[in-house]
């Protein structure tokens, strides 16, 4: 992935997400300053502030975890991607579904790297009309779910094992590439202070229909 692409797609995507979160935190802080008499005393607010801080840190960790996954797929550092999952995690990338870290490893390191999968995720980008991301931390603070909307570049590997196909693959070529809008839906668990994915699914959105004139 080129630096330009990084700036134009995934990096911008997550910078935007961070900016939204930052604005929310700032608004809450400002409200506290404007209502000094009605607000609880600082010692009383500490647990709540602590929960908010932890929640903020968890959201950011999950965002970074997701960013690490998409970067690993784009950079084809599949070994790094595998390590982001729990041992019994589920992964479903546009219909290619596997269960458990060994199967995830086979999918990414064998089928993806050797272009054996029928369709590959090769890049991600933020669309202009993307819906906002959703991250929900469970009350126990150890589980979370998230939805990340983005476009995926789907690549269809060159079929056949002819010399021609081998040489084309050496040049990084695929049979066909196209972009589809969709979303990641993920579940997470926090173990020993570290978030990992227990499930990740990418589903393409159905193509939008043109509006009919009345």
């Amino acid at each position, binding site marked *: 992935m080129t630096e330009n692409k990084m700036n134009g797609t995934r990096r911008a995507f997550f910078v935007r997400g961070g900016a939204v979160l930052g604005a929310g935190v700032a608004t809450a802080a400002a409200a506290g300053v404007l209502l000094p008499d009605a607000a609880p005393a600082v010692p009383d607010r500490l647990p709540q502030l602590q929960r908010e801080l932890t929640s903020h840190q968890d959201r950011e960790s999950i965002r970074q975890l997701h960013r690490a996954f998409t970067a690993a797929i784009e950079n084809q550092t599949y*070994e790094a991607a595998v390590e982001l999952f729990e041992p019994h995690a589920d992964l479903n990338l546009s219909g290619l579904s596997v269960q458990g870290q060994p199967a995830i490893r086979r999918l990414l390191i064998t089928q993806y*790297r050797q272009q054996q999968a029928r369709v590959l995720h090769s890049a991600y980008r933020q669309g202009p009309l993307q819906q906002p991301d959703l991250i929900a931390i469970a009350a126990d603070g150890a589980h979370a779910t998230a939805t990340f909307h983005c476009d995926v570049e789907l690549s*269809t590997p*060159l*079929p*056949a*094992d*002819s*010399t*021609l*196909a*081998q*040489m*084309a693959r*050496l*040049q*990084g*070529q695929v*049979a*066909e590439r196209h972009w589809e809008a969709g979303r990641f839906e993920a579940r997470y668990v926090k173990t020993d202070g570290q978030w990992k994915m227990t499930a990740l699914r990418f589903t393409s959105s159905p193509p939008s229909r043109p509006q009919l004139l009345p």
Partner: protein
Amino acid sequence: MVTRTYRSLQMHRIPYTDLTEAQVTQALRPAASGPSSKSAFSDVFAGKHLKIVTTDGPRLDYNFRNSHELELSENGGKALKAGYGALDSRGLILLSHMIPGSQRGYEVVIDPRTRLVTVFEVSFSGYAAAETAAAVEAKRAPQFKNGHRNREAQRKIWFGYVDDGSAAPAARHTYTNRLEGKGMHWRQDNDIELLEFYVSILYSNFIELTRFGGEMTICAPTDYIMVNDHQFIYSRIEAEFSGTLTVQIIDLFEMSQKGVRLGLNEKDELEYYMYSGNGETTGQIATFEVFGNNAETRGPRRLYRPLETFEVMTDDEVKDQVLNHAHAFGDGHGSGAAGMGGYKGELITKFAGKSLTARMDNGGPVIQYEFTDAKQLKWRYEGNSNWRDAWYEMYEPDEDLYFFAHLLDAEFPRSCAMVALDMKNGLSTIVKGTTGTSFRNNETHPTYYFGVFQMEGAPTPPQYLRHGMTDEMVGEAYTWNYSPGNPGLTSMHLYATPSTYSWIIFQPDGSGGLQWSSPGWYSKLRDGVYIMAWVEEACNGTLGVILFNRKIMHDAGFGYHVGRQGGLSLSVIGARARHAGRFEVKKHLGLI
């Protein structure tokens, strides 16, 4: 036409020695005194001082004592003495020297008018390190099947300028696609004559007519650098062969070349000489980049190493595959749609229930057929009572011209028959594909047979007229799109001689990329209709046979391959063609 004095062994069959570093050092030792040259060296630098600065590369401080001795300080280091040679290409200077006591040297192109410089930093015994690093990056095992290739020249290219104390020029020489599509015939001052085809921006294709034969072209990773609109720098490394480096200046106004060759030949002897040559353009074929794409920047150097990746099988392995794992057309379920048959034609079924005899001349096979249905037939050699069943597929690449194929007897080596039937005149051609060559068991080879066929309703075959071999395709280049999509599975064929062809894989931007060559054979069936065969020797061993109809720019054909994966397979080929152009090379090959 040159007199054939070269060895009959083609370059891809020469067992180049896997030399040790010490052997390479020893072989390179005479290079310290500089290259030889039939033409006089230039004395343009004699007595002068030259300081070269490169972007991200070495800083070279030269003192030229005379026309053949220099002193060089690299990056401000201690000055060392070396012999050198320089040739002047109408003001553009090619300088060549090695660094005594090392396996390193420089080939430098200097333009005194613009002060721009291109530096080739050349070394030997570097394949292992480069391959190991590439393997780490690609997360694969390094390839050392054919040794450590210490003999293979490695090069780093640096763009820079002559520092004369004034402000540095802003421009630099650049990579280019401006030579792409061009063919040249060169005659050098050392009596070497060769054809070069620049049909990729990463590779080139060449035939040394006077040394390694006028039969089969060879491909090598190549760099193309633009000096100005008529002067270019071309360099190649014969990577899978001797590993020899060529760097030359090409002047398209004067049609001249000034070059240097540095490497170890097939006898492991030093070949280090400079040369001058005169040439002529043999043609300019189409290129397929969008307008405005000048390939000034390019991705990483890419090398195709088929000798490393070829899966050599033992006798027993091949025997097991051809006897126990043979499949024709997916055993009746079809083939090729996902590979090289994405544009296969309509399956011809109208021979079901019919019988015929294909009778080849001069002791060739005489085969009787009964077509059981659309996919199965019975066949036997005439005079043999035993009918055999076989899967077949039949296509009609030209009107009333049919082409079908099937496996022959389950024996080792194993053959297939690819049969053309011309319903307009009763002529028939059989290309018999057989596993094994004298070099590798899991290569294949074709044998052409020309003759006639007899069938109820077919014309009475002629007595004398036959299909036959042709050189009509020599010099032609066609693109072949095997499957929908852009670029999909697409290549370009260059039919450079009557006995070879090469294929170029397009890069995503439409420029020519990796390229390789193999032996090829061409026969003519009708005007504009040919059967062409190739064997991917020392590559993956596949025999491809296509019946090409230039009128509809389409083919129908078959692939015959044996490997550990997939066993012995006979499958369909079907692709759509575009004419890319033609090189006029026949006169250089003695064909006219």
